[in-house]
């Protein structure tokens, strides 16, 4: 015979599984609704521009500073490793490829999730808790079209731009340390980088990655906010979940995309 505790445990596991599937279904429906109600955003681009400022422009500081430091660290570490094999001149390639293929899209998406994603969740969660979304619905204005869709598109547009800025700043950081501080030959630093970085294979793939991350992070952030219980704990829990879930999603998606893109190399 099973004892009572075991039965309750099994029941709880079942409950959680059903809840997770239901939530996934809601999230998918929410995503479809967001796309279906995007017309307003494109008819009134000012709605997107306003959100671009909040999600994109205000994230620039953290992205640029982080990019610079990551590039500088790459400069040091790369130089140390390459020196062992006497190929310091390949430092430019190492810095640029690491950034464009991996670190640019991934690190900037992680930063974007914690800077802009959490803000989106908290804002929408609070709008729901203070009945602003209900008020909008009562005024015959669809909150998904008016509040959610512009933020979604702003996120999707700003993510690749931020990743590009991150990579550019990183390359500059690598140059500062490698060429200016350590003294690697400037000509070979830039020339080797130019010849090794392929537009289609490296840059376009990096951009595709950051667009996918942008969609994932913004979708998760908006859904968590829209679905948050309308209480203080509800909103704080949703904000935490946004950062945790989007970080895991970014890393998981990065693995899948990398496997698909670079398997032949």
């Amino acid at each position, binding site marked *: 015979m099973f004892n009572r505790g075991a039965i309750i445990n099994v029941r709880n596991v079942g409950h959680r599984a059903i809840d997770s599937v239901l939530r996934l279904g809601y999230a998918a429906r929410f995503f479809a609704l967001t796309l279906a109600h995007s017309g307003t955003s494109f008819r009134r681009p000012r709605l997107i521009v306003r959100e671009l400022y909040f999600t994109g422009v205000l994230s620039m500081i953290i992205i640029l500073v982080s990019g610079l430091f990551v590039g500088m660290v790459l400069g040091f570490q790369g130089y140390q490793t390459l020196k062992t094999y006497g190929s310091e001149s390949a430092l430019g390639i190492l810095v640029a490829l690491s950034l464009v293929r991996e670190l640019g899209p991934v690190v900037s998406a992680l930063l974007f999730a914690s800077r802009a994603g959490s803000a989106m969740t908290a804002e929408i969660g609070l*709008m729901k808790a*203070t*009945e*602003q979304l*209900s*008020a*909008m*619905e*009562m*005024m*015959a*204005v*669809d909150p998904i079209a*008016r509040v959610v869709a512009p933020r979604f598109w702003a996120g999707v547009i700003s993510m690749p731009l931020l990743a590009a800025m991150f990579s550019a700043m990183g390359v500059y950081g690598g140059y500062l340390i490698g060429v200016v501080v350590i003294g690697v030959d400037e000509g070979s630093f830039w020339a080797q980088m130019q010849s090794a970085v392929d537009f289609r294979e490296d840059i376009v793939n990096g951009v595709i990655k950051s667009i996918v991350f942008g969609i994932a992070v913004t979708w998760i952030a908006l859904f968590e906010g829209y679905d948050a219980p309308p209480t203080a704990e509800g909103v704080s829990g949703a904000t935490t979940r946004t950062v945790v879930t989007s970080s895991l999603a970014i890393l998981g998606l990065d693995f899948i995309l990398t496997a698909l893109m670079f398997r032949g190399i």
Partner: protein
Amino acid sequence: MAADNLVEISGVSYAYDKRHPVLTGIDMVIPRGQVVAIMGISGSGKTTLLRLIAGWFKPTRGSVRVNGQLIHELDHEGLYRMRRRMGMLFQFGALFTDLSVFDNVAFQIREHTDLPEAMIRDIVMMKLQAVGLRGAHALMPSELSGGMARRVALARATALDPMLIMYDEPFTGLDPISLGVIRNLVKKLNDALGSTSIVVTHDVQEALDIVDYVYYLSEGVMVAHGTPEQMRASKDPLVHQFVWGEADGPVAFQYPSRNFSEELGLV
């Protein structure tokens, strides 16, 4: 249906889940041009009833007609068309915190009309003048007191001259002066706009002064209705306890619990 009733509710029941009905067998009519109160203690189903009228929920049984149409059978487009002619004042105003007072009031006009900005300005100023806050048009919601926020929300709810204005607990948490101001505005705006108003409230005395008719809900059932005078004179113990604010009566002061002596271990 009689054309002089804006809202007709017949035999409406509603339950979030089958075991816990929120409303059972509600019948009520709201004649055009009147201010009608739905009263009852917290948790009696008042707000749910208001949301059924707004088409937020679909009744489990029965029908809700607004302006001759079954609101729960309208599609998304039809419901939104109907809501353009409704205004709702939420309990704490629910102003958009990222927009100024002016933009809050202008929100609906901008969303639903193509009026030139100069005309929108005139309408917004008229609405703000009606609630006495024309001078506050440039302030942000965070700079307003609770009473002012509620007045701005009232200006916003009436921006498109709705046929039906719904108030969800409009008097809660206000100081006596703001409360008096809001109370008078409910009546004044209803008459000036030729609208019909539904006030959901548990603030009895404030409401009884301004409404034409009262429906009294208890645990999801309509237990009494009548004019304010009838309610004040009612011998129904439930209504009497509620109207006169008595601590104990049919609605017990104590939450259901086991015997107090048992609790203290005296028996």
